[in-house]
């Protein structure tokens, strides 16, 4: 059976996914890899960005349009054979709430797209504004969770974050219509009409630029004195206790920054897709896969993250291509095999190469004692023996 491959589309879609996942996984790596904060609710923060775009963004843009360009939008509505009967001049005041409601959203979306095609400059302005809002709200969410994150043991924190994320994404996002339209989701206005027909390509390029910027930023954090301190603390709780408040502040900053990064990715993903449905932001896609990418590529290594992202995304694309060939052969949807395969990959990777394909680089200020401590942590299980070796004369 011949498979038709549109290389251009394939490359573009691959680039989009790699860029989006790079941002999310880098942010996870800052928390989990460098700082030892096991964020099992990453999908909450990605969803937060997308939800801000759909929930606040839709209302805000419809409101601004209905106030500043009342006549124009009214004209567009009246030109529409379907909407002209349903929406009258008196309804313009409630346009903002109609646009965030799944019933009105679909029809109004046509109008909004047309409007932004006529006013691309307003679209760009709103795009930037909403992006800033998403990042800010993501950061605030980070500040909120930093409170328990600095106080709870790892596994309790993991449970709490996963529970909160499932709650917000799977229950509230899915069932509560006023947020992002419930089960049907919401369409977004075409803010970036400036790109014309090539809007998806445009957003993809923006995502790639954002991913590169985030990579450089993450590298800067990792190589800064604060970054080295984070790793030292992750590896030695005693040191954490003795360094006290400074560490708490750095950890909190890391959580805020990572949350904002994930929200940025979520917002750009939403704008790329042109719609937001809560089911797109599930645990599997935005918590499990980023963890898998980090573990495959290399924990606490930003370049490793990029490698891990690329490997898993190429794998996914491969599965997408093979799927139609497999579908007639197996009596079930082959997509499940991809999920099962990913689950197996992560377990095998932990077993065979837990440090990842590109292991963590030793810190640039590393000294003999640190290496010694690492080896000791690695090789000796007995606390008493560790103590003895530290004080004693035994050589590794």
């Amino acid at each position, binding site marked *: 059976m011949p498979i038709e491959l549109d290389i251009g589309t394939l490359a573009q879609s691959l680039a989009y996914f790699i860029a989006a996942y790079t941002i999310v996984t880098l942010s996870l790596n800052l928390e989990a890899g460098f700082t030892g904060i096991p964020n099992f609710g990453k999908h909450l923060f990605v969803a937060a960005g997308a939800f801000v775009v759909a929930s606040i963004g839709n209302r805000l843009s419809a409101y601004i349009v209905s106030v500043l360009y009342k006549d124009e939008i009214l004209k567009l509505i009246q030109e529409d054979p379907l909407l002209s009967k349903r929406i009258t001049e008196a309804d313009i005041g409630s346009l903002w709430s109609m646009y965030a409601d799944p019933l009105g959203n679909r029809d109004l979306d046509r109008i909004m797209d047309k409007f932004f095609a006529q006013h691309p400059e307003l679209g760009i302005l709103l795009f930037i504004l909403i992006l800033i809002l998403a990042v800010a709200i993501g950061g605030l969410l980070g500040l909120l969770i930093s409170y328990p994150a600095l106080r709870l043991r790892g596994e309790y924190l993991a449970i709490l974050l996963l529970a909160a994320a499932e709650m917000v994404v799977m229950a509230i996002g899915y069932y509560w219509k006023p947020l992002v339209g419930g089960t049907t989701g919401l369409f977004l206005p075409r803010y970036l009409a400036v790109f014309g027909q090539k809007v998806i390509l445009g957003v993809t390029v923006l995502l790639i630029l954002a991913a590169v910027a985030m990579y450089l930023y993450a590298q800067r954090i990792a190589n800064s004195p604060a970054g080295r301190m984070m790793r030292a603390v992750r590896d030695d709780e005693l040191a954490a206790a003795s360094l006290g408040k400074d560490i708490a502040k750095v950890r909190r900053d890391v959580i805020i920054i990572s949350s904002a990064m994930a929200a940025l990715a979520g917002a750009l993903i939403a704008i790329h897709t042109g719609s937001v449905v809560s089911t797109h932001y599930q645990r599997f896609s935005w918590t499990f896969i980023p963890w898998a990418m980090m573990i495959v590529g290399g924990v606490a290594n930003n370049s490793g993250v990029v490698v891990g992202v690329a490997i898993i995304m190429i794998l996914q694309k491969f599965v997408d291509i093979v799927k139609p060939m497999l579908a007639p052969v197996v009596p079930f949807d082959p997509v499940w095999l991809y999920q099962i395969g990913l689950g197996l990959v992560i377990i095998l990777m932990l077993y065979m190469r837990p440090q990842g394909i590109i292991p963590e680089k030793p810190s640039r200020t590393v000294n003999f004692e640190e290496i010694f401590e690492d*080896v*000791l942590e*690695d*090789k*000796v*299980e*007995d606390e*008493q*023996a560790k*103590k*003895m*070796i*530290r*004080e*004693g*004369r*035994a*050589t*590794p």
Partner: protein
Amino acid sequence: MAPILEVKGVDAGYGKLQILFNVSMEVEPKDIFVIVGPNGSGKSTLLKTIFGLTRIYKGSIRFNGEEITGKPPHDIAKTGIAYLPQTDNVFAQLTVAENLKMAAYTLPPDLAQERISEVLERFPLLKARLKDKAMTLSGGQRQILAMAMSLIRKPKLMLFDEPTAALAPKLAAEILDEIIKLRDELGITIILVEQNAKKALQMGDKALLLVGGRVMYRGGAKELLEHPELGALYLGLKK
């Protein structure tokens, strides 16, 4: 008399981390054999090595003429060696009676009951506290319980890892007296690792001085106690 335990040229440690270097020793039956040395010199590791809890790279350990090098701990326990770790040597959440029952886990029920009665005769203080959780016992009582648990299997050789650590001096003396009684009354060979080198060397027959994982002295305990330099150098004993 043939030695009951022979350690020959043993290199051992944890994973790739070597701690003992070419250690040899011979323990005569019914001796109290004392291992002393500064902090972190590998004393506890030597006991663990005998009991199969470390990795042995080189050398051999024979007990009663039988090769036990590289055997897992539960097999070594079956040959008649009992090991009493410094801490966590009883089940704190279990009652005294349950602890003893667990010590007799592999014995047939009748024999188990008989042995438990025997050790309760020996340590009457445990009898009064059978229903209490081990965590409610004092440090000294816990050591006694640990000793009772080892005795249930009628060991020929008992390895004590700092049994008096963190005990008040009077209690510590009592525990050491019990250990001497185990040898005198039951004929059990004892290997003892002790912080209080003076006290240990006074009660010991033979001694081994371990420094940095290497043997510095092997011979009579009293002789080490009276050695002009070694004691002062490594054990903090006054000349």
